[in-house]
């Protein structure tokens, strides 16, 4: 095969058995790779009703056909499993170098089933693989684990691993690769921990074969030349200030979630935005494999309390731990970020859960004696200390480790958890960006902007500006962006490059450039229609999994704060999110029933009529 390596490695952790399987060409074309492979495998093999932290759960790590080809940002892999945070499906993706190494070692995807009796790691070296003892790594940070594994396997090996948080089954534990790249969301690290799988270590020296190398090279040169010309015209904010530069946009459009989503602007925003990060803490930027952008931040903080060196923060971390907790001390945010990277935690859920705890204390529903320390808005030391305690499940950290929904519900106030399907939102306020609310409510993984990101058209004006406060007509555009995201996530690309450079310039964002890359790489000869259909197939298959896990329209929802409490400040002052109005229109666009269930006709059209488990 071309583009695809043609092999999947199945790892039965219970029996300690490894088996290689061929990739079926029809499944490869229909589901593309990455996220698509994940749902294709899970719908046949995982019980949607299983306990996510039991041996019954199945976990898939899958690259896309463009991963490792040299296509710009073709560096990503996806982890899919049933989430211990949401009980729904999850797909959490990351870049760096590990995913490319996995393909160069000969595999498109890894399937993990069962549970190892003792801690183990998977060592893959150019097509051969074995499970090895990991008892000596248990309890080690992601950084220490990576260093130890490279010294005992190969100095050039790439590592994806969990930290202590994953071992302790923190419900939002991340899988970290190349030390600081995170498949952060929905607790994929806890699933690894529950399986006693500490790490996957890979060394690959092969190449990804291309179906038409000349065509690939020509299109690649043209794409990069166009990208570079545009960057000369308008220097790329993502390169200069990283994703942290977005604070300027969200603050000025009034969608920077602040004080656990009680406000849409933050008075301390200038202390936490990208320019401050660059001026005070940036050492250099860092790019994933084959990425011309380089949004990663290598930072260093000289501070007696918050000092350190590492990677981050991203915009989402700055919102969750900064404005949302009203912490305007960027050094404290960075320190908490470093702890998350080393312990293996999702920074979004961590920050949002602490913000929720701050509001619970503020409203008198939670006592500081229970927390074991003062917990006022803006307390940077509390942010850092509680992050450390959460990774260790120490004291009150044991309750924070359950995420904001379970914490707030245990105190009788679930309405104070800013979540969809029990997963905390990223940093865009739906009252000031209406389609964002629809995207959060309908994302299969719960609160997320990465399964169709309306911020592109509502806030960034890509491919063209659309009024962020209008809700009518948003369902159709949101669905188009969700379809595009499914294709990007499955191809192995990064959204930061693909939306601007590889999609059509109309609001239905057809994946034109991605199609060109895919066809040159794989020879699968996708028509544009087939590729859009593949995106729809992936989303609908994920929806089927959710329906079988017991989800329905009543779960496609937002907290009352967003739908019933008018935003008190900023440009979107007075607005609520008109979710219900958008939802009806959205289900019609998807050809799902009024209850959000895919119709038989829809399933048949996408080749999904065959029942999964």
């Amino acid at each position, binding site marked *: 095969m071309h583009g695809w390596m043609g092999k999947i490695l199945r790892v039965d952790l219970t029996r300690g058995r490894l088996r290689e399987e061929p990739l079926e060409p029809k499944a490869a074309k229909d589901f593309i790779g990455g996220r698509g492979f994940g749902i294709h495998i899970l719908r046949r093999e995982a019980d949607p009703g299983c306990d996510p932290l039991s041996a019954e759960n199945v976990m898939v790590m899958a690259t896309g056909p463009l991963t490792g080809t040299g296509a710009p940002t073709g560096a990503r892999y996806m982890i899919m499993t049933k989430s211990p945070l949401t009980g729904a499906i999850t797909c959490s993706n990351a870049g760096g170098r590990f995913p490319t190494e996995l393909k160069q070692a000969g595999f498109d995807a890894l399937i993990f089933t069962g549970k190892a009796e003792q801690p183990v790691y998977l060592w893959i070296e150019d097509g051969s693989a074995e499970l090895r003892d990991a008892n000596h790594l248990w309890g080690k940070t992601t950084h220490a684990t990576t260093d130890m594994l490279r010294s005992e396997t190969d100095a050039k090996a790439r590592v994806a691993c969990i930290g202590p948080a994953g071992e302790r089954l923190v419900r939002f534990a991340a899988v970290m690769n190349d030390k600081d790249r995170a498949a952060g969301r929905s607790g994929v690290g806890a699933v690894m921990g529950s399986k006693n799988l500490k790490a996957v270590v890979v060394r690959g020296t092969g190449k990804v074969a291309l179906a038409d190398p000349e065509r690939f090279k020509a299109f690649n040169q043209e794409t990069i030349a166009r990208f570079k010309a545009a960057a000369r015209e308008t220097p790329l904010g*993502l390169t200069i200030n990283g994703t942290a530069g977005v604070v*300027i946009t969200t603050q*000025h459009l009034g969608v920077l979630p602040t004080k656990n989503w009680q406000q849409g602007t933050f008075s301390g925003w200038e202390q936490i935005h990208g320019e401050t990060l660059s001026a005070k803490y940036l050492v250099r930027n860092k790019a994933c494999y084959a990425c011309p952008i380089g949004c990663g931040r290598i930072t260093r903080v000289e501070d007696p309390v918050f000092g350190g060196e590492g990677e981050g923060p991203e915009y989402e971390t700055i919102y969750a731990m900064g404005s949302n907790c009203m912490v305007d001390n960027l050094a404290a945010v960075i320190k908490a970020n470093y702890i998350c990277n080393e312990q293996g935690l999702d920074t979004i859920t961590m920050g949002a859960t602490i913000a929720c705890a701050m509001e619970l204390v503020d409203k008198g529903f939670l006592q500081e004696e229970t927390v074991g320390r003062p917990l006022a808005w803006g307390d940077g030391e509390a942010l850092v200390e509680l992050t450390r305690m959460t990774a260790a499940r120490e004291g009150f950290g044991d309750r924070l480790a359950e995420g904001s929904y379970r914490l707030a519900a245990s105190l009788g106030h679930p309405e104070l958890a800013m979540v969809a399907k029990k997963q905390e939102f990223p940093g865009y306020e739906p009252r000031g960006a209406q389609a964002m609310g629809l995207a959060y409510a309908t994302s299969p993984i719960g609160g997320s902007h990465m399964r169709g990101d309306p911020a592109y058209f509502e806030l960034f004006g890509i491919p063209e500006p659309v009024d962020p406060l209008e809700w009518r007509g948003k369902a159709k555009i949101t669905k188009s962006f969700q379809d595009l995201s499914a294709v990007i996530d499955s191809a192995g690309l990064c959204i930061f490059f693909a939306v601007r450079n590889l999609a059509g310039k109309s609001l239905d964002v057809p994946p034109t450039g991605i199609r060109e890359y895919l066809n040159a790489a794989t020879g699968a000869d996708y028509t544009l229609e087939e590729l859009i259909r593949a995106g729809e197939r992936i989303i609908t298959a994920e929806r089927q999994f959710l329906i079988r896990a017991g989800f329905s329209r009543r779960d496609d929802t937002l907290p009352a704060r967003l739908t019933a409490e008018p935003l008190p400040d900023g440009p979107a002052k007075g607005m609520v999110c008109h979710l219900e109005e958008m939802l009806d229109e959205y289900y019609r666009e998807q050809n799902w029933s009024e209850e959000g269930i895919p119709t038989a006709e829809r399933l048949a059209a996408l080749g999904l009529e065959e029942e999964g488990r």
Partner: protein
Amino acid sequence: MIVRVKCFTGLRRYAPEGRKDFAIELDAGARVANLLDRLGVPVATDLIAAVNGRRVARETPLQDGDAVVLFTPMEGG
């Protein structure tokens, strides 16, 4: 009339002496587009203009004392 202007990221290079925050005198009735012209920002530049905290179009007229913020839109995550 005089408006106060703040430029961020890629637009900083059009600010007088690269200053982040400055005041500028414009003819009465001037629009956002006239301000951009004065600063030498090319017409094709991808940017967001917010006046007194609201995102506005380039044709929007400015008033004396307005606070204008200019920045390039970019994604986050």
